[in-house]
């Protein structure tokens, strides 16, 4: 019974593959969007002095612990037909799930990026000041030189996105063949009392997450070697 999920994986069960590809599509896209927002935000927080900066840092750090179900509910209320963004009609679609996950993990990526870049900034500060590249130039240089360490921040964000169920089940609706992901499928099978299939799906999810982390590790190692191991 436990092996049924693996059997579906090996025999190429189309429903399972649709679930896996939707999970990856949603979580990877959310990670990409969160990176575009979170990395520059983290860098700015690391090197810009402005009033209230410490308060912003504390808030971003605190938002790392935001419960997915709260994010899901907030996005649900925004996207519902009766909500302010209801006219777009994207509730209960993969897009709504991407939005919710991107909001959930942007603080994680921003907070971890800020820490990484703050450490780099200590080493680079005088040099960048002497080169007079401006804030944008400094941010770009720091993000680029810290890229391999920042990969960890992206992986942390992706891990959180692919593991959460609270947000996607509210804004996606767990629709069979349309918005069902690995985690919502696990929740459904649990509620149907099919615990072996649920735990099997959990193990498949874990395998996929390990594979992605291995790939990222390989990219990082190869990249570091090519870049002259900085």
């Amino acid at each position, binding site marked *: 019974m436990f092996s049924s999920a693996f059997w579906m994986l090996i025999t190429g069960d189309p429903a399972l593959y649709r679930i896996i590809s939707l999970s990856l*599509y949603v979580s990877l896209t959310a990670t990409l969007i969160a990176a575009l927002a979170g990395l520059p935000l983290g860098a700015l927080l690391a090197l810009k002095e402005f009033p209230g900066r410490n308060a912003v840092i504390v808030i971003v750090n605190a938002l790392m612990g935001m419960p997915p179900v709260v994010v899901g509910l907030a996005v649900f209320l925004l996207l519902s*037909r009766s909500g302010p963004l209801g006219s777009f009609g994207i509730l209960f679609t993969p897009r709504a799930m991407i939005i919710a996950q991107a909001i959930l993990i942007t603080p994680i990526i921003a907070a971890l990026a800020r820490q990484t870049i703050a450490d780099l900034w200590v080493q680079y500060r005088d040099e960048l000041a002497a080169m007079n590249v401006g804030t944008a130039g400094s941010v770009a240089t720091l993000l680029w030189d810290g890229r391999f360490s920042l990969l960890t921040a992206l992986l942390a964000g992706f891990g959180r996105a692919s593991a959460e169920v609270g947000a996607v089940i509210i804004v996606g609706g767990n*629709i*069979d063949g349309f918005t069902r992901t690995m985690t919502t499928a696990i929740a459904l099978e*649990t*509620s149907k009392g099919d615990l072996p299939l649920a735990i099997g799906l959990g193990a498949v999810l874990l395998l996929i997450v390990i594979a992605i982390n291995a790939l990222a590790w390989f990219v990082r190692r190869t*990249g570091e070697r090519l870049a002259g191991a900085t």
Partner: protein
Amino acid sequence: MFKLNHAIAMGLIVLGAAAGQSVLAQDKSIVLASTTSTQDSGLFGHILPLFKAKTGIEVRVISQGTGQALDTGRRGDADVVFVHAKSQEEKFVADGFGVKRSPVMYNDFVLIGPKGDPAKVNGTKDIAAALVKIKNAGAAFISRGDKSGTHSAELNLWKVAGVDIAADKGPWYRDIGQGMGAALNAASASNAYVLADRGTWLSFKNRGELLISVEGDKRLFNQYGVMLVNPAKHAHVKRELGQAFIEWLVSPEGQKAISDYKINGEQLFFPNATVPGA
């Protein structure tokens, strides 16, 4: 080295677009807010492919408790609502959120209990008497507590039994605030009594020591109704597609599809769209 970064970003986008295409290509679809009992019992898995083969319309099911499903319709987030709590459905229509309620089918509730039977009710036929015995014995009882159709049926049965559950509940009465499957899992784990719809019970796999304790009482009857969300309230509602689904459900063909659905040879839902007042 910027190339590497670009390659990763491009890879993500291409992967995303490829996975997204299949998702965005479908347009002839409706959103149906329905209950966990119709989904978890496998009924939709049987009838929706038949409907799609005939009409090409894809029905996207959000399965929730009846209260939440009606709320989804009230907010305009679904085109059609298919639930089981007649008085709540009639209020939904009376308030102008639904166009018209059509009866579709019924199934029945069963009282599920542990083999050990601490309240001594197994095999009896009178649900009201059984609930009184459970209360008097202080035997563990799981309540859905989620404003679902099954939850409101349970509260109604306590009333019928003459028990004021809000005042009389003790630690034996566990209100878990979750769906039918979660309630059955909780009952299985703690050897408690629980009210369940027969369909979810028959397809439920993690039974442990549980079995059907009380069944066959007329008061355990469970009627399902379907309603189109009112396009006058929510202009985006897909009136034609939603109406096509409702008409198919109550047509001889849809009714036959419902009665054809069986688990282990046992019929789960009994179509009664033509019965007046159902």
